[in-house]
């Protein structure tokens, strides 16, 4: 049997050209600039950075432009770029208590230290299309308060913790966290590996898994203890200096979900927390992550782990959209030889079935 292995070069070359033309769109319309994408499609940039697991607004804007706004493809492009850079070191853990807050809300305490700060949110918009945006609008400016917000805001969970009502986090033992980009995950997975995987996981998948726990597939009764968004300073300790230095600031979104825990033989009933932290402004993702983080603790807390969101391997092996997309889309690659053998197998089985049925008919007739 002859199998064609050559012959697509010109078609592929022309396909690249067609893609470039389609990407550019109407040549009479000015092309998008990267500052326009980074500045006016900021939430798309945030999502691409989060799911690529690389914080760089300019590169994420380029990835979005190159991918024609396909954010999953954009994350893929940024992931690929990431492999070309060396890693200098890891940072000290960012301290979200000292976040320069742009938004901070709690659904559990009305009056909390620092207050409820709505910031930029779609929560109170009417979700009606705003046709004034279809016309080219001028820059708008929001009002400023006379005084800035408090420099530090305690977490809601620390208020519960002070009363002994919140299950404490395991103390920081300076243990090296897992790194799923270097070591393949093992199951059950360490919590550091779970959080890293969820932080770079697909927003839709993480959201749906979190939703499933609310609908009865996980028995969660969560409260949004706190959601905060703003900038945090990133500090590293370079080997050559030996002391911590600030290298810049990144925007992050953090969610702490407060969940019930009915207690065990050794522990009194108390609240537990599910934790979400993502690059950029992504509340939906941070909340989904916090729900799933808590669901994945089921076995550690002695709860029955029977639902999909509580299954480490199911969640962590399927939440990455670059991997999922790669494996699903590889089906588009030529499988001519595989299929040829399947075809022959099915034909043979059908021929055998024909013989068998003819035999049965003859026996019945006799």
């Amino acid at each position: 049997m002859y199998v064609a292995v050559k012959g697509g070069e010109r078609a592929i070359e022309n396909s690249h050209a067609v893609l470039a033309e389609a990407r550019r769109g109407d040549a009479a319309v000015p092309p998008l600039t990267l500052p326009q994408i980074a500045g006016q499609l900021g939430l798309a940039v945030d999502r691409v950075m989060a799911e690529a697991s690389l914080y760089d607004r300019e590169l994420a804007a380029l990835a979005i432009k190159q991918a024609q706004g396909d954010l999953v493809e954009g994350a893929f492009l940024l992931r690929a770029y990431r492999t070309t850079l060396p890693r200098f070191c890891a940072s000290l853990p960012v301290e979200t208590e000292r976040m320069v807050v742009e938004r901070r809300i709690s659904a559990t305490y009305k009056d909390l230290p620092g207050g409820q700060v709505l910031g930029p949110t779609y929560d109170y918009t009417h979700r009606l299309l705003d046709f004034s945006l279809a016309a080219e609008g001028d820059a708008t400016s929001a009002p400023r308060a006379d005084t800035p917000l408090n420099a530090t805001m305690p977490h809601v969970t620390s208020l519960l913790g002070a009363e002994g009502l919140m299950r404490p986090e395991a103390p920081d033992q300076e243990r090296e966290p897992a790194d799923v980009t270097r070591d393949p995950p093992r199951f059950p997975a360490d919590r550091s590996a779970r959080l890293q995987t969820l932080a770079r996981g697909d927003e839709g998948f993480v959201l749906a898994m979190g939703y499933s726990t609310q609908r009865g597939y996980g028995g969660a009764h969560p409260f949004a203890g706190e959601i905060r968004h703003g900038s945090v300073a990133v500090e590293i300790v370079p080997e050559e200096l030996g002391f911590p230095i600030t290298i810049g600031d990144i925007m992050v979104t953090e969610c702490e979900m407060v969940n019930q825990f009915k207690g065990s033989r050794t522990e009194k009933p108390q609240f537990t927390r599910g934790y979400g932290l993502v690059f950029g402004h992504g509340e939906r993702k941070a909340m989904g992550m916090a729900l799933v983080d808590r669901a994945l603790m089921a076995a550690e807390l002695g709860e029955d782990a029977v639902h999909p969101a509580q299954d480490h391997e199911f969640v962590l092996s399927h939440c990455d959209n670059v991997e999922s997309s790669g494996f699903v889309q590889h089906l588009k690659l030529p499988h001519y030889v595989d299929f040829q053998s399947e075809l022959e197998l099915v034909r043979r089985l059908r021929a055998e079935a024909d013989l068998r049925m003819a035999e049965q008919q003859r026996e019945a007739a006799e």
Partner: protein
Amino acid sequence: MATLARAPRERLEAAIASLAPTPQWERLRGPEAGMVMVRGRMGSVGGAFNLGEMTVARCAVRLDDGRVGHAYRAGRDLRAAELAAVLDACALGPGLPASLAAALAAMDAAEDAARDDRSRRAAATRVDFYGMVRMG
């Protein structure tokens, strides 16, 4: 170093230009682009986990008088990293040049002003709850 890491490149260029004599330097390492793995804390207070990487430009330089400067800056601006390393070296030792002291103070002031403005913008959206008291 935080000041030099956050300042926009134009301010670093201006600070170098204001120095007399203009500093001479050689590169010890870089400037080069790479990444830092950003870490968070589990549950905001617990042990560390890897959140994701960020791009970083770094550089190390030696001035002709032997002082060594280092810079690490978020992003991939190699020129800015080199300038920041030179200014870091210039700020070492006794006798900080007056023009550099003024430039660093101006960088800090600009950063503080931007931060204050963003914080006051957020503060304007803080909710003031008030109670409704039924009369009678």
